[in-house]
């Protein structure tokens, strides 16, 4: 593994563990029983800058770790967050377009707003999807009525979390060592 590759893995692991710890000890107690999810928002925010490759890898691994700490079947959140990563990655605005803000008609502020909205929608949809999947599997804990009843509060909660997280993700990923190689290639293709 190259040095940059190793750095990216360490950064991703740190981000996942931090997000999961903050979710369990701060976010979840404050918003329970609404399934607002900081790790899902993080996956979305990173994917929206770094593209589908980073999104799917981060989504799958974060989901897998989260699954292992819960009592529902392993793989549910891995699948849900993998799809969040791919979907948000497909809608990513590469760094280069944002950093060329001076000549580009899209200012950074608008990109961040757009990112936050996409992240919130994707995460709320993934929570609903995971709840539906668990209900379909007949697993304890998931119920159909609350899953729909919590949709709008979840969307609002995810949006509140998404604003700082997308800003943070774009700031962190400005650092070349943490950027996806593909995104760097896009930069050089434009440059």
């Amino acid at each position, binding site marked *: 593994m190259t040095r940059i590759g190793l750095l990216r893995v360490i950064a991703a692991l740190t981000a996942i563990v931090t997000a999961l710890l903050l979710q*369990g000890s701060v976010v979840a107690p404050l918003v329970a029983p609404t399934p607002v999810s900081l790790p899902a928002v993080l996956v979305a925010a990173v994917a929206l800058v770094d593209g589908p490759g980073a999104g799917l890898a981060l989504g799958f691994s974060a989901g897998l*770790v989260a699954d292992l700490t819960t009592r529902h079947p392993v793989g549910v959140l891995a699948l849900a967050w993998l799809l969040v990563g*791919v979907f948000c990655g497909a809608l990513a605005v590469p760094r280069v377009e944002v950093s060329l803000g001076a000549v580009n008609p899209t200012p950074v502020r608008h990109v961040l707003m757009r990112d936050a909205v996409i992240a919130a929608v994707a995460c709320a949809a993934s929570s609903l999807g995971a709840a539906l999947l668990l209900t379909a599997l007949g697993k304890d804990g998931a119920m159909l009525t609350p899953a729909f009843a919590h949709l709008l509060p979840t969307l609002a909660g995810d949006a509140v979390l998404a604003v700082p997280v997308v800003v943070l993700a774009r700031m962190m990923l400005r650092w070349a060592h943490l950027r996806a190689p593909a995104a760097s290639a*896009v930069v050089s293709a434009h440059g």
Partner: protein
Amino acid sequence: MASITRVGPHRLLRRLTRRQRLSTLLLSVVAIGFITLDLGGSGLESAHTGVRGSFGALYRGTDSVLGPARRWLQGLPSAGSNEAKLDDLRAANEQLRGQLSAAEQQRSDARQLARLGSITAVQADGASVLAARVVAIGAGEGFDWTVTLDKGSADGLAAGQTVTDGAGLVGRVLHADKTSAVVLLAADPGSGVGARDSRNGEIGISTGAGMDGFTFRPLNPDAKLKVGDQLSTGPSQDSSYLAGLAIGTITSVTTSTDGTVTAHVKPVSSPTSLDVLGVVVPAAPPDSAATDPAAGVTPR
């Protein structure tokens, strides 16, 4: 790098590369494979235990830093009134003494130790209530009705022990790791508690209904339930819960066309505002108590 699609400013959706499509497909299949494997109940338990144990320890650390701010935001009582909570738990402990067989000499020991202020668990006759703090709720998403406590098997906690908040039933210990434990709340829709109507003695099953409290179904189809009836945990043979703890109050009774009676129950303790809880730890077996005089008494 020829496969990377150039992105035009008007093009919203970037096409995924062939490799990314393949990875998505592959990882989805892996995830579905895991789900199938775990549904079958095989193989992944040691991975669960390892990750849960590590996160339990990390939650304790995180809670010691961020816990006070979170509790303030949540409007939970802080240090001062936690004393009141501990008093409640001690009162619950006293109640347990009545339910279990009495042994007087333990009591004076317990009083003395309590006076010394050096213990969190007071050994009562047969069982003790160990005070523990909630350091995390669920994980990842909100549809897991569990909380993580800052005490574990090292403090005497084990799977199946009843958890109370001093006022009533909260749940039971699902897993106990070394320094942390996961509690399944009775409000979990998959959780069934043997319950007894304290007015007429009808027994039945109280199923968790999340924020809606419980749904009570009496075993006797002709049971006469009334709004306002108090439910408590029932006969303990088949249930892992300690008998006699308050569950809640019946708020409505429904009789379906086939004559089945169900009742909605308002819980005594809210599942989303839990802080200091008490775990009912049964007495250690006599042989281990002889070798370890401190069994059941945990120094702070």
